[in-house]
């Protein structure tokens, strides 16, 4: 037993834990730099990086389909949509540096309270015992997803697609009014 592993108790260093910590650092860093950047274009990029890191997390959890759908839709399409929106509007705007004041203190307190609540919730929940085996074989996760989606949850799924269509038509109508 060397010093590092004794700090973490029964913690085992596998490729997955290393990848988890790398991804976690990436996501947190990207999220913090998102708040630090002053140019909107840089913000859009770092949010893209957050999406990518989250996709990596999904891969670690064995949800390959979700991970690559996340990259395709969030890191790809939505980031590009944001870039387009920034380019087609006033993009030279630079955010003013805010002075530390009363609001900052309140926000800090709120963040600390949220962290405490989450820590408390995580510590008190009875988690199922960890196992090396995912609930379904990795090659079958797409089939499992499809079966759940199109049998058990077929009505909500169809309703969501109707909602998206309505939103699409609504956006077109709103854009048309400008003319």
């Amino acid at each position: 037993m060397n010093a590092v592993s004794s700090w973490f108790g029964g913690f085992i260093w596998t490729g997955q834990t290393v990848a988890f910590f790398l991804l976690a650092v990436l996501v947190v860093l990207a999220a913090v730099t998102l708040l630090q950047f002053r140019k909107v274009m840089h913000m859009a990029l770092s949010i893209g990086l957050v999406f990518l890191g989250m996709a990596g997390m999904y891969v670690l959890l064995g949800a390959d389909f979700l991970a690559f759908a996340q990259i395709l839709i969030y890191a790809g399409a939505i980031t590009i949509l944001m870039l387009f929106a920034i380019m087609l509007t006033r993009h030279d705007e630079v955010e003013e540096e805010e002075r530390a004041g009363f609001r900052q203190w309140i926000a800090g307190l709120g963040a600390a309270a949220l962290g405490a609540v989450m820590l408390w919730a995580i510590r008190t929940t009875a988690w199922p015992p960890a196992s090396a085996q995912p609930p379904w074989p990795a090659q079958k996760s797409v089939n499992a997803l499809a079966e759940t989606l199109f049998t058990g949850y077929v009505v909500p799924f169809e309703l969501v697609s109707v909602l998206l269509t309505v939103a699409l038509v609504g956006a077109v109508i709103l854009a048309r009014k400008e003319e």
Partner: protein
Amino acid sequence: MIAFFSWVHQALTWGTVLKMVAGALIVLFFLLGAVTYMLYFERKVIGWMQLRIGPNRVGPLGLFQSFADILKLLAKEDIVPAEADKPLFLIAPIVAFIPSFAVMAVIPWTASHVFTADIAVALLYYLALSSITIVGIMLGGWASNNKYSLIGGMRSAAQMISYEIPLGMSLLGVILLAGSLNIVDIVEAQRRFMWFVVPQFLGFCVFIVAATAELNRTPFDLPEAESELVAGYHTEYSGFRFAFYMLAEYLYVFAISCLGATLFFGGWSGPLLPGWLWFAIKVTAFIFFFFWLRATMPRIRVDQLMSFSWKFLLPLALVNIVLTSIIKYWVNAG
């Protein structure tokens, strides 16, 4: 050799990491060599089609021409325009290049799947990663702070997003027939049944048109239309950053040729010859097709570009999906 590179089912030791790095480097150098000779092949083929000779000065038959060009590019100064958004300008070519190399992980080169990641959602992986390249191209165009670059980058992004949808839809027919998103399984399904180009002819037509547009190649090379936009999104780039953009572009030509050969022409399967040779022949045929197209077709007009994708290709791809699923259901039921 094969057992040596099957790191998927091994524990992550330093030895496995070393093997992974070695495998990635082998694929990288193979791809660099392939791209180098694709450039040469393109110039020669187009030269012959236009009754010219093509490069013939550097080395025998001009075989070292591309190496000379690459050396020149690498030796050039890396210029950053004064008004450019410097950090974005510097990372944009890298953002564009990395996914183009990463998509190669799912290409089944040979029957024994050396260097092939056996991902269950390989096709989705390919589409997802290739969409990140668009971000790199768009950033390059924007960060250059040049109107030609910006217009080129916007055109490129709009075009690639629009044609990505019919491209993905055309692949759905193949996925329906094979019953899997895994490229290795799709090749196996074609060995049992037949090449999917026959039952999926409509899907193949949509695929090849959408792929050409996705690659920004003639007749869809509006983002780089040199007569109106100088060179599009990479106008301001020089030296090795420009080389990164070109490399990404040609890697995608190679990757989409591999994808087309695998999904519609049975990949490495074929009689007599070994698997890797069949794969090489099919991929070369695809690459030749793209070059042939470039030498033959005029450029499409910018106002026709979007309506062609949304009003023609997409409905065609949807018809293909509906037909495929009805016929598959009917065959399975009957």
